[in-house]
């Protein structure tokens, strides 16, 4: 990303060109992040003067069962990452064979990525309702009805499947296909001559060759789980039923804007900040390794 050697010096101009970005980031990203860390140690109702109260918010948080529920829910959602990675890799590998019509499949599979979380969350809410198509079908044919949205377990599993496996699939396919297109074709020819099975070829050639892309994909999925779920949960389940789809992100929203306890929500934000900082550093390390 950055090679110093052939450049001449433009000490002032460089800063001039990045100034708009830096001002926006300083004001609207960095300042909120830093102030959140501070407000976590205060009592503040959203207006007026905040009061320093030390670690009270953190003491309250660590004995708050909703906090641990949100951590546990996030932990369960993480289990969808290997599922998503495996499914995406398998579909990309099939497409890579170039079956007749494969580009049409690639295009259609990409459609969920175009739809925002609000459209996806609302659509699935309609589909999974008791009066929705799936339960109507199950009731009229088998006399059963599955509580997709009203059972805590199904709601959380549905959230994981839809937003971690279903929705990024098309993006992942294109991403892995691009990585696979860089694999030296002679490796596959050699494997074919040796009579290697499709599985052995996949396991010993494809996977090691695109290891880097897989690592990147996993980091992106972590970002998805920790930092990009709010919109979906807001329209799909509002964190419920009960607190079954409550995540840290949703908890911060709930505490700050529905329970009107913004300084307590800042303590939650600090925990989320720590998780995200680790993910961010992991991502930067991958980016730097790619450039090396």
């Amino acid at each position, binding site marked *: 990303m950055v090679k110093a050697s052939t450049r001449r010096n433009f000490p002032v101009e460089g800063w001039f060109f990045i100034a708009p970005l830096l001002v926006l980031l300083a004001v609207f990203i960095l300042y*909120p992040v830093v102030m959140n860390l501070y407000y976590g140690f205060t009592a503040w109702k959203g207006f007026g003067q905040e009061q320093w109260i030390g670690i009270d918010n953190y003491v309250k948080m660590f004995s708050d069962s909703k906090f641990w529920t949100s951590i546990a829910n996030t932990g369960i959602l993480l289990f969808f990452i290997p599922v998503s990675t495996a499914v995406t890799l398998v579909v990309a590998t099939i497409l890579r064979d170039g079956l007749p019509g494969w580009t049409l499949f690639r295009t259609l599979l990409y459609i969920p990525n175009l739809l925002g979380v609000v*459209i996806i969350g609302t659509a699935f809410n309609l589909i999974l309702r008791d009066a929705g198509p799936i339960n109507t079908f199950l009731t009229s044919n088998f006399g059963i009805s599955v509580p997709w949205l009203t059972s805590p377990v199904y709601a959380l599993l549905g959230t994981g499947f839809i937003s971690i496996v279903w929705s990024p699939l098309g993006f992942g396919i294109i991403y892995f296909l691009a990585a696979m297109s860089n694999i030296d074709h002679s490796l596959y020819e050699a494997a074919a001559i040796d009579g290697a099975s499709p599985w052995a070829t996949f396991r010993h050639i494809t996977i090691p060759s695109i290891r880097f892309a897989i690592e990147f994909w996993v980091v992106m999925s972590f970002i998805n789980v920790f930092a990009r779920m709010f919109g979906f949960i807001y329209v799909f389940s509002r964190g419920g039923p009960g607190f079954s789809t409550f995540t840290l992100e949703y908890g911060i929203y709930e505490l700050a804007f529905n329970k009107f306890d913004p300084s307590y929500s800042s303590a939650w934000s600090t925990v989320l900040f720590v998780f995200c900082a680790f993910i961010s550093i992991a991502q930067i390390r991958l980016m730097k390794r790619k450039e090396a």
Partner: protein
Amino acid sequence: MIRSRLSMIPNYAVLVLMTLIAIIPLLFVLGSSLKTPTEYALDPGLIPWHATLENYLWAFGNGGILHYLSNSLIVVPFGLVLYLAVCVSAGFAFGKLEFRFRLGVFLGVLFLMIFPQMLLVMQMFKLMTMFGLTNSFLGLVLAWVAYFSPFGTYIMTTYFSSVPSEIMESARMDGCGSLRMLLSIMTPIAAPMIGTISIIGLLTMWNELPFSLLLLQDNSLRTMTLAVAMIQGEYGLNTPSLAAILMLTAIVPIVIFLFFQKFVTQGATAGALKG
């Protein structure tokens, strides 16, 4: 590789199954949007046997969707222009100019790329109130551009740093300043990548929820996406009407995709693979 036709069958089966799973939700929304509430209640399946446009007529009439649509059509292009200016300019500096702390600042920008919007939005709301920018499109646009620019900047930086420096060197010889270099030499060269980040920016802003939700409290300012999220909770709206509104929200990204598919697929890989 020589393969028998028979061995293709399982592969096709997997592809067809995955494709159905991917597109059926959208087909369901489309089908429902063409039914009357009565037909939907009797048969919520995919196919509208007695297709009607009444839900769309309602959406544009009493549903007031035209208003939200026009809000989005104002605020998204506004945001996009600012986003492009910020990303292209910063990407050019990080990728092609030499200045002190460049690497450190660049890594700082990357570090700020992933933090969830919920982490920022409360303090941001406080700031916007101070600046008088709540319930204003300008406030929303500034928040969007600040939040989405690090990724666009990263893509532009990797792109610009792959442009051969000789092009710049010879222009420098002719006395070309950095600003003119950016506007008349680098921007045309980078046009395809600018197209890619335009699509990324457009889709993310069109579909954005958290900032719109908390910065636009005034109902008349709602974007299309925000309107969908709120309408669902506010009135016990019947499913076909809601489906029609969903289709109208989804149609913009889908049309963009159909016209600019190359840019979209390029965008999927630009951030992570191109060097």
